[in-house]
C-alpha cells in the first residue's frame, strides 16, 4: 500500500516538474557560455570610403535623421557614393570634427559657422532657402498660459537654452538679458541646456521651462508637423533677422570635392526627387551665400562675449 502511494507521489511530482521545464516555446539548441568572453572582432573596413556628413544638433538626433536622411540619400545617389550621417551632442563637437577633417560636409548653426570661420577657416558651401529668404530669427517663446509678454517678465523664472554655442538659442537671449543689465545666471532662477531646438520647444510646452529662445525655422517646422506644440506655446518676441544656418566644408576638403558637393546641393531643386528631399528637411533649395550675411550674428556674438 505504502509502495503504491509512493509511486503515485513520484508520478505526480514528475508530471509537475515536466510541465514546468517544458514551458519555454523557443529554446535555442546550442548553449551560450556567458562566462567565456571572446575578443570582439574589428569591423571590416568598406572598400569605398563613405562621404561623412555632420548635421549639428539644431534638432534632436532622431529628428535630424528623419529630416535629413532623404536629403543625404539623394546626395548619395547623386554622388554615387555612400554617405554616413554623423551627429554629435553639441555644436562645438561638430566644429571639432570639421576642423580635424573627420567630416567632409556639415550642416552647422549660424554662430558655429561664425566661430569656425574665424578660428580655422570653415568655408561656406551653400545656404538653404526657406520662405524665399536665407534669414531666420530667434523666437522667445513661453508656455501658452504664461502671463509673460517680454523678456523682463521672465525674471526669476526657469529658462531653457539650446546649445552653449547656439546663435538663436543662447547668444540672442543672453543678449536680451544683458540689455536688461543682468546676466542669465542672476536674471533667471535656473537655466539648462536641451542641446536641440525641438527639445527646447517641448521643454516650454511641457512647462519644464518658463521660457526659451529657439530657431524660427525649427519652430515653424515643428509646429507644422505637430500643431499641439503651437497651441501649448506662445511667441512673445522675434529677433532681427540673422543669416540662415549654412552648409559648410572644412578647409582640408579638396577643391574638386567641394565643387562637386556645391554643384549637387545647388542643383537639388531642379529635380522632383531633389525637391522631395528638400521638403523633408523643410527647405526650398540651396543657394550660394556670402560671409557678410553672417555679420549680424558675428556682431551679436561679439556683443555677448564682450560683456562679462
Amino acid at each position: 500500500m505504502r509502495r503504491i502511494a509512493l509511486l503515485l507521489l513520484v508520478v505526480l511530482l514528475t508530471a509537475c516538474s515536466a510541465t514546468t521545464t517544458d514551458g519555454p516555446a523557443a529554446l535555442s539548441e546550442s548553449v551560450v557560455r556567458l562566462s567565456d568572453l571572446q575578443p570582439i572582432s574589428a569591423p571590416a573596413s568598406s572598400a569605398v570610403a563613405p562621404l561623412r556628413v555632420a548635421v549639428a544638433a539644431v534638432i534632436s538626433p532622431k529628428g535630424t535623421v528623419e529630416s535629413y536622411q532623404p536629403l543625404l540619400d539623394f546626395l548619395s545617389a547623386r554622388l554615387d557614393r555612400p554617405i554616413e550621417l554623423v551627429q554629435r551632442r553639441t555644436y562645438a563637437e561638430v566644429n571639432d570634427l570639421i576642423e580635424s577633417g573627420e567630416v567632409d560636409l556639415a550642416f552647422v548653426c549660424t554662430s558655429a559657422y561664425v566661430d569656425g570661420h574665424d578660428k580655422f577657416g570653415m568655408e561656406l558651401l551653400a545656404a538653404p532657402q526657406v520662405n524665399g529668404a536665407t534669414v531666420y530669427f530667434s523666437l522667445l517663446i513661453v508656455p501658452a498660459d504664461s502671463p509673460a509678454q517680454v523678456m523682463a517678465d521672465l525674471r526669476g523664472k526657469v529658462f531653457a537654452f539650446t546649445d552653449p554655442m547656439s546663435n538663436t538659442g543662447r547668444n540672442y537671449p543672453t543678449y536680451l538679458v544683458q540689455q536688461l543689465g543682468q546676466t542669465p545666471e542672476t536674471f533667471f532662477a535656473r537655466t539648462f541646456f536641451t542641446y536641440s531646438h525641438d527639445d527646447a520647444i517641448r521643454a516650454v510646452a511641457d512647462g519644464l521651462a518658463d521660457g526659451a529662445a529657439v530657431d524660427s525655422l525649427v519652430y515653424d517646422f515643428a509646429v507644422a508637423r505637430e500643431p499641439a506644440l503651437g497651441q501649448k506655446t506662445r511667441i512673445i518676441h522675434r529677433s532681427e533677422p540673422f543669416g540662415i544656418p549654412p552648409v559648410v566644408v572644412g578647409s582640408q576638403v579638396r577643391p574638386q570635392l567641394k565643387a562637386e558637393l556645391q554643384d549637387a546641393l545647388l542643383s537639388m531643386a531642379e529635380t522632383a526627387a531633389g525637391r522631395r528631399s528638400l521638403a523633408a528637411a523643410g527647405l526650398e533649395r540651396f543657394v550660394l551665400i556670402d560671409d557678410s550675411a553672417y555679420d549680424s550674428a558675428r556682431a551679436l556674438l561679439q556683443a555677448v562675449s564682450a560683456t562679462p
Partner: protein
Amino acid sequence: MKALIARLPQRFWALAGSVSIRTKILGIVLGLVLLLGLGVTVQVRYTLTRAMDAQLQEQSVSVARDVAARATDLILTNDLYALHQLLRETQANNESVRYAFVLAPDGQILAHTFGAGFPAGLRDANAVGPAEHHRTTMVNTDEGPVWDTAVPIFDGRAGIARVGLSETVVRQTVDAVTGQLLITTVAVSVVGITAAACLTWLLTRPILQLAEVAQAVGRGDLSRRVPRWADDEIGDLASSFNAMTDALATAAEARAERDQLRARYVSGVIAAQEDERKRIARELHDSASQSLTSLLVGLKAMSTTCDAPDVRQHAEELRGVAAQTLDDVHRLALQLRPSVLDDLGLPAALERYVAECRRRYRLHIDLAMRGLEAERLPAQVETALYRIVQESLTNVARHAAARTASVLVERRNGRVRAIIEDDGRGFDPAGAGQERLGLYGIRERAELLGGTLTIESAPGQGTSLFIEVPIAGDRGPHA
C-alpha cells in the same frame, strides 16, 4: 503484479489491524497533512514558476524597450560612453538583467556589459526585424536559461538593443517559496501530530478503561463500572457495557442466592440423613441388639436346661442364627453411623472402617493421617471426610478391581486434604458414569464445605481422588 493487486486488500487489513488506534489516527493526520502540504507545494511551485516566467518575459521586453528608447540619441550622437553607462545602469538597477548590449545596424557591437570580451554565439542567438515590436527567445546558457529580448532602435536605423534576463532570481524565489511551504508543512505536521496525540488520548482513554474494566469483570469483579466520558459512540458502548455488567451482577446475585438455598437444602438433607442414620443405628443397637442378646441368652438357657436332644440341637441352631443376626445388626449400625466417629473422632473411625474394609474386601489398604491428633476437626468436616473415604473405598471395592489402595488425610495450613488412590482399572474422568460411581456425592459434600474435588484417572492407570476442604474457623468460608 496481478497477484499483488489481488493480495492488496488482505495486506491492507493486515497492516491496518496490526497497528494501534493511536498509530492509525497519527497516520491519518500525518498522511493528510503531508499530502495536502506536498500538493499545495507542487501546485504553488508550478503556478509561481509559470507566473514569474511570464513576468520575467514581460520585464525583459519592457527593459529592452526602455534601453532602446534611451539609447537612440546616444547612438545617433555617437555618445558611446553614455551608451555604456546606460547599459551598466540598466543592469545595476534590475537584479534579473544578466546582460545588455547594443548592436549597430551593421551588426557591430557598440556597447555591452560583459567587460573584457563578448560571449561567442550570443550575438546571433536572437534577431529582430526593423518593423517588429520586439522578439523574445530563451537562450540556453551555461548559467541557466536566459530570456533574451531584441528590440529595434529607432526602427532599426540606430541598431538593435538586446537584453538578457536570467531566470536565476525566479528559480531562487520559487525555491525559497517552496522551502517556506515545506517548512510550513513540517510545522503543521508537528502541530497535527500533537493534536492527533491529544485526540488519540481522548479517544483511547475510555477504550483502554473499558478494556481494563472488562478484564476485571471477566475475573468476576462485577462491582466495577466504566465512567461515561462523552455522549458519543464510545459513551454508548460504555453505557451498554455497564448495563450488561448490571445484568450480569443481578444474575450472579440470583444464582448465588439459589446456590445458597440449594446448599442449605442439601446440607439440611445430609444432616437429616445423618441424624436419621444415627437414630436408626442407636435403635438397632439399643433395641434390636438388646432383644437379640436376650434371645441368645434365652436360647442358651433353653439348650442347657432342656434334656431333649433334638430340641437342644434346634435351640443351638436358632442361637447360631440369632448370633449371626446380631452380628449383621452391629455391622449395619456401624455402617449407618459409627458411634466411634462421634465418640472418638475421625482417626479412630477411619482406622476402624479401613480395618473393616481390609477384612471384608480382602484389599491391601494403606492409611496415613497427619495433623489430626491435636485437635478434632469440626463435626461436619469429620462426617464429610468419613463419608467421602467410605464412598471412595466402596467404589474401589466394587469397580476398580484393585489389589491395593491408599488413603491419606492431612491437615495443613487451615485446610484438610484427603487423597484416595488405587491401582485398579481406572476410567475416563471426562466420560459418563460419575454419578454411578458416587463421585457426584463426593463432589457435593466437598463443595458444601467450600472445598474441591480433583479426579486423576485414565483407563488402566488407576484412580486418584484429591479432596481439599477448608476448615471453618481456621480459614475459608463456612459450608
